[in-house]
């Protein structure tokens, strides 16, 4: 048991020190292969997400999560300009389970979001990417590598995301 605890701590420290991505660095980490669905029920292989070599934002959210909706509403205000400037695409991954999954489409439409929407009702992609809590946002560069991630949302955080997108857009 003692050994295991030491092992646990060692693994934790090692993993934290080695893999906390400090932003803007291409670690070569890609999207994992997870099969989920979009709102129309089509299968999505998450590893195959692409945007013609332009950046992609993967944002985890839920209908009941206020900061998540605030983040996606805030980005929506600047989205058209941002797409024009950087070619970015945002994929909003809803982790709503069966209780709230059917509220995703009315919520997205009523809010007027122009994002791609994926449904992850059993948390398969959330787990594969190591998301603890929503909101959490990942930025993928044109090669599909995860170059930046941020958890939580406070007003002003969007500016940091825009800066990171601009850094990697061609």
């Amino acid at each position: 048991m003692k050994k295991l605890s030491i092992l646990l701590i060692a693994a934790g420290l090692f993993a934290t020190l080695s893999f906390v991505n400090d932003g803007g660095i291409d670690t070569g980490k890609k999207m994992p292969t997870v099969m989920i669905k979009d709102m129309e029920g089509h299968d999505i292989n998450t590893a195959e997400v692409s945007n013609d070599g332009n950046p992609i934002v993967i944002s985890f959210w839920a209908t009941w999560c206020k900061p998540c909706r605030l983040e996606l509403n805030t980005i929506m205000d600047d989205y058209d300009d941002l797409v024009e400037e950087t070619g970015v695409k945002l994929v909003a991954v809803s982790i709503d389970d069966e209780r709230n999954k059917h509220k995703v489409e009315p919520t997205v439409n009523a809010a007027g979001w122009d994002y791609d929407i994926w449904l992850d009702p059993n948390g398969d992609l959330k787990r594969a990417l190591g998301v603890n809590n929503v909101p959490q946002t990942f930025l993928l560069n044109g090669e599909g590598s995860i170059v930046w991630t941020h958890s939580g949302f406070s007003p002003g955080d969007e500016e940091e995301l825009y800066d990171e997108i601009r850094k990697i857009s061609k």
Partner: protein
Amino acid sequence: MKKLLSSLVLFLPFCSIAQNQIFDRANVTGNMETTIQYLNDDSTIGAFAPEQKAVMNSYLNVNYSLGKFRTGVRFESYLPSIAGYPAFYSGTGIGYRFAEYSGEKIQVTMGNFFEQFGSGLIFRSYEERALGLDNAMDGARIRFSPIKGMQLKGVYGRQRFNFDDGKVILSEGVVRGFDGDVNLNDLIPSFSDSKLKVSLGGSFVSKYESANNDTLIIPKNVGSYGGRLSLRYSKFYINGEYIHKENDPSAQNNYIYNSGHGILINMGYSKKGLGILLSAKSIDNLSYRSQRDVIGNQLFINYLPALSNQHTYNLAGTLYPYASQPNGEVAYQLDFLYKIPKKTKIGGKYGTDLHLNVSVVTAPVQHTSNMNFNVDRIAYEGRPFDGSDSLYNFDLNFHVSRKFNKKFKASAHYFHFVFNNEVNTVTKKASGYITSDIGVIDMQYKINRKHALRMEIQGLFTKQDRGNWATALLEYTISPGWFVAVMDQWNYGNSTVKDRLHYLLGSFGYTHNSSRFMFTFGKQREGIFCIGGVCRPVPATNGLTFTFTTTF
């Protein structure tokens, strides 16, 4: 075995560093979460500190993938578990491990896995860590996609029950299941551009548990099956699932030999600026577990979502929350979302968002005429959507939110609950129905590019239980890192004057990219903590809580 796995985990990250240079697709991902509490006694609010004074929950997930191969492990540690967390979690050990291969058309997983068939009414293994829920399967899974638009899944295993002194204890029963899912638009090329979208699916799940009962002949194998259909035409959609369960005597249903059913139907229409959703649910005798003597939240094979809004404002979410009744309920829910267009007189410059939600849950009628309970132990007959006028829960809530200018946003919220304390007992201070009204005002002011201030004022008004409550919250954030907040909950309407207590709670924290730490200190009142319609009571606490999370 454990040693082998542990060394594998330590070894893999090194591999990935080496492999990163060679293969493009070697990945290590994962996360860590640690919660440490230092607790004090506080007899005024009924908070008790354990002997150890300090308690801890910790988790570390590591996933490694290389090409088509993926493996992962989760360490977890409860020394002992934090206040209010299920006491059957103790010690340090490996709580989850798996290996997986994903080919073009086939994916195989061995070890632990989470999975859901359809809406989950028949089968869902999942994790809700905050509640202490984890019914992960331990066994094997195969997913097969022979052609585009068709997916077949098979699962076989036992479920996680407890985590005792660092070791996972599994269910006594074994769960086997098969599910098929077809999307006709993807399957039939000539149908792919049709405005009509059709998908359908079917599932079969069976559990086996040995039985040794002197008085009853208990079925050792219990089957459950059902189908689902989803149709969508332009902006309209309707989907539903029907599940039938064979007779399944258990502690939950008092060992009756009734069969059970579950039906979920969703109908919606939505276009830009508007969303309407009508949901209906009928459940009878649908507690389906991998061990028949277990009650509470553990070892469910299936998932029964609550058909009501998930409230997140403190007073609306934690005092009188509704939870699903596995023995039976009939429920209806309506959601209406509308955005008053921007640049209009009523909508304002940025538009105004409206959301109305109403849900009503009643007990099902149990027809008892012509029953021979002493012969076949079938206690009653239950029919789909056969609701009685015995109310389980009524919830009406309305939300308005508006952005006034670039700096100021505000929202107002109203809730009306009629809560049945006999069905979902949350308080001993009241019996029967508890009627409450709640109002919330939430305001946010962005001071400049990085600084923002948020304030919540909440009031709960009821003549029953502990009377009226008021809550105020003030939060200051400095993007992208810092946040500090103070919240006070005041039970000013308690009929016992000495119980008109304040619960003052402060917190601050820092976020660096995907790592975050937070300190919370002060008093937290007892309440009910719910996610997805599953709830667990949380005791009153007084002390300091440290939380650290990171994703890597």
